[in-house]
């Protein structure tokens, strides 16, 4: 069996146990978390290199051959997402050095964060539906604790909503798994791909809709997104940024996997539903953001809106559209988390991220302004930044498929995104500082470096788009041809 596939899960999981033991040594804990996330990034890069060299890597635990043992599979989609997850984990661990206070560290911030990272990577890499449920719960329980750590009033108020909705979503997921097992007798995803093809199509579509609700809540698509803007602005910035970047994307990943591998029997209906939801998600999210006046709340609504573009790519279900969806996903994780980081810096420097209470930052902190400008323009889709290519791919795929209405919605949403970003820019950075605003502290290096690094990634993805696009297209080709995934898991081409 190949250890490389499970290394991005095992490293943070094992390290979190050590971090628990170190709970009286916060300085050591911080360094440990940083070192672990760096090692995880190295392991996931090695995995991606292996996948692009030798194709899909699969391994089963415990020596039981698939479909009986629990399978872990790394295809391009999984490997790319694990790399993105590891980059975000490293950036968050660095940012947390200055952002997470001693009290929260004492309550176990670092071990919980490492468990969260392990859960996210586990969800990306598992090839078993029930195991996916288990990883979802691992990351959920860690995220519950991180979201409410410290028990601030606003945190509890947001946490209650987040916990309640996500618990309901988990139960939907579990019920869907039970019914799937009753229908097919297997839960291995590669095995299911074949079994669901032979099952009665109306029952399969019913299951698809159950999974759509379960994953749709996690991914925050319309009309299941209300928990997200209600909770994401409450925890410390480092936590909120990782949540904003990665957690909804786990739901998007699950949708991508389910609706390219498992539920491809009745594309006209299932992906038609996805297209309608994508349109609503884009528009409702961006309109919600336009009504907000606090940086982190605006950004939280934009997460919803941008999930719509990814779902749109999935709904169009062509190689170009899937490549666009994946490119969009990667671009969005980096840019969105970076904007949360910047919002945290604004809070640190100006004492608030409410647009009524800050101003004049361009004049007094020009580098911070540039740090905001790069991800914000990327989000709005300005060339030559990453968001331009992401939007271009999805829109091109939409034009190819003749989905005119959705293309118009996507472009209109882009304009309104620009409106929100200029609103932040104009009021926080350009407008003169309001009376009595004192720029208190300077930004600590630990918070500036992740912002600069992620802005660099955004620029790199925009300027040197070729290699990123090639990876996304390789992933899309695998998604359009599930037989390769199935052969890697069930055939001889599995483990060396």
């Amino acid at each position, binding site marked *: 069996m190949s250890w490389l596939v499970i290394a991005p899960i095992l490293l943070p999981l094992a390290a979190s146990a050590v971090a628990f033991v170190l709970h009286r040594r916060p300085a050591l804990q911080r360094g440990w978390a940083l070192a672990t996330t760096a090692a995880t990034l190295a392991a996931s890069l090695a995995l991606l290199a292996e996948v692009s060299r030798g194709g899909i890597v699969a391994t089963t635990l415990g020596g039981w051959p698939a479909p009986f043992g629990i399978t872990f599979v790394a295809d391009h989609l999984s490997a790319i997402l694990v790399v993105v997850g590891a980059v975000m984990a490293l950036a968050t661990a660095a940012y947390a050095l200055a952002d997470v206070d001693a009290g929260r560290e*004492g309550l176990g911030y670092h071990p919980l964060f490492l468990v969260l990272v392990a859960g996210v990577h586990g969800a990306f890499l598992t090839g078993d539906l029930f195991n996916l449920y288990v990883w979802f719960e691992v990351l959920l329980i860690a995220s519950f604790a991180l979201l409410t750590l410290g*028990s601030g*009033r606003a945190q509890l108020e947001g946490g209650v909503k987040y916990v*309640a909705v996500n618990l309901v979503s988990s139960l939907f997921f579990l019920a869907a798994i039970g019914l799937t097992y009753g229908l097919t007798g297997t839960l291995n995803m590669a095995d299911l791909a074949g079994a669901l093809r032979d099952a009665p199509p109306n029952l399969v579509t019913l299951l698809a809709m159950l999974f759509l609700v379960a994953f749709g809540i996690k991914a925050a698509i319309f009309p299941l997104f209300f928990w997200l803007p209600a909770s994401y602005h409450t925890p410390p910035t480092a936590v909120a940024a990782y949540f904003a970047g990665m957690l909804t994307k786990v739901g998007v990943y699950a949708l991508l996997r389910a609706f390219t591998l498992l539920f491809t029997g009745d594309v006209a209906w299932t992906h038609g539903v996805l297209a309608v939801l994508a349109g609503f998600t884009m528009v409702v999210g961006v309109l919600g953001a336009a009504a907000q006046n606090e940086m982190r709340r605006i950004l939280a609504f934009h997460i919803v809106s941008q999930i719509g573009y990814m779902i749109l790519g999935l709904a169009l279900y062509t190689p170009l559209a899937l490549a666009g969806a994946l490119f969009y996903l990667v671009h969005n994780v980096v840019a969105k988390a970076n904007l949360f980081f910047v919002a945290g810096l604004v809070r640190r420097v100006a004492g608030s991220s409410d647009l009524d209470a800050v101003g004049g930052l361009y004049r007094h902190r020009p580098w911070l302004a540039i740090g905001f400008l790069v991800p914000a323009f990327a989000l709005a889709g300005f060339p030559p930044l990453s968001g331009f290519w992401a939007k271009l791919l999805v829109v091109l795929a939409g034009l190819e498929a003749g989905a005119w209405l959705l293309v118009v919605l996507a472009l209109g949403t882009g304009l309104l995104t620009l409106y929100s970003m200029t609103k932040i820019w104009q009021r926080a950075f350009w407008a003169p500082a309001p009376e009595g605003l004192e720029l208190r502290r300077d930004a600590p290096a630990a918070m500036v470096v992740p912002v600069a690094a992620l802005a660099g990634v955004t620029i790199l993805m925009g300027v040197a788009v070729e290699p990123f696009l090639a990876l996304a297209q390789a992933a899309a080709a695998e998604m359009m041809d599930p037989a390769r995934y199935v052969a890697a898991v069930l055939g001889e081409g599995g483990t060396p």
Partner: protein
Amino acid sequence: MEAPVALTVGIVFGAGVYLVLQRNLLRFVFGLILISGAVNVSIFVAGRLTRGASPFVPEGAVAPPAGSANALPQALILTAIVIGFGLTVFAIVLLLRTYERLGTVRTDELPERLDDPRPVDRNGDAPAGAPRPRPMPQGGTVPRTGPSGTDARDDGEGAP
């Protein structure tokens, strides 16, 4: 045999959904517990019900005899029960902490309590949502109220 169990699952699920839709968060948690029980039983039924044939592998054989019960759903349910237990406990503790800090467990009252610095003591016998006559010193009667600066409304940066 499956039909009455399936019917039971439906009834319990329905009762759970009814409770989940209530505004009182305690009822919400009870609803979750009911639904998670119903889901577990439905997984059990999904593995088909077999009476009287335990899935033991006889000595020398490599598989249980034909017609024996399916052991896999039980393993799945066991995992699901353990996970559900952990999540339910977390939800209840979160509820308790929310009641301590915000003084209510009704979802429609939570937002208005955000700006209301009125802690509720743990042994307070006033019903949830009842006005508190005497303001209490911050943190005085609420044990273990988080690490630092947690009484601010936005305490994302609660560095001491």
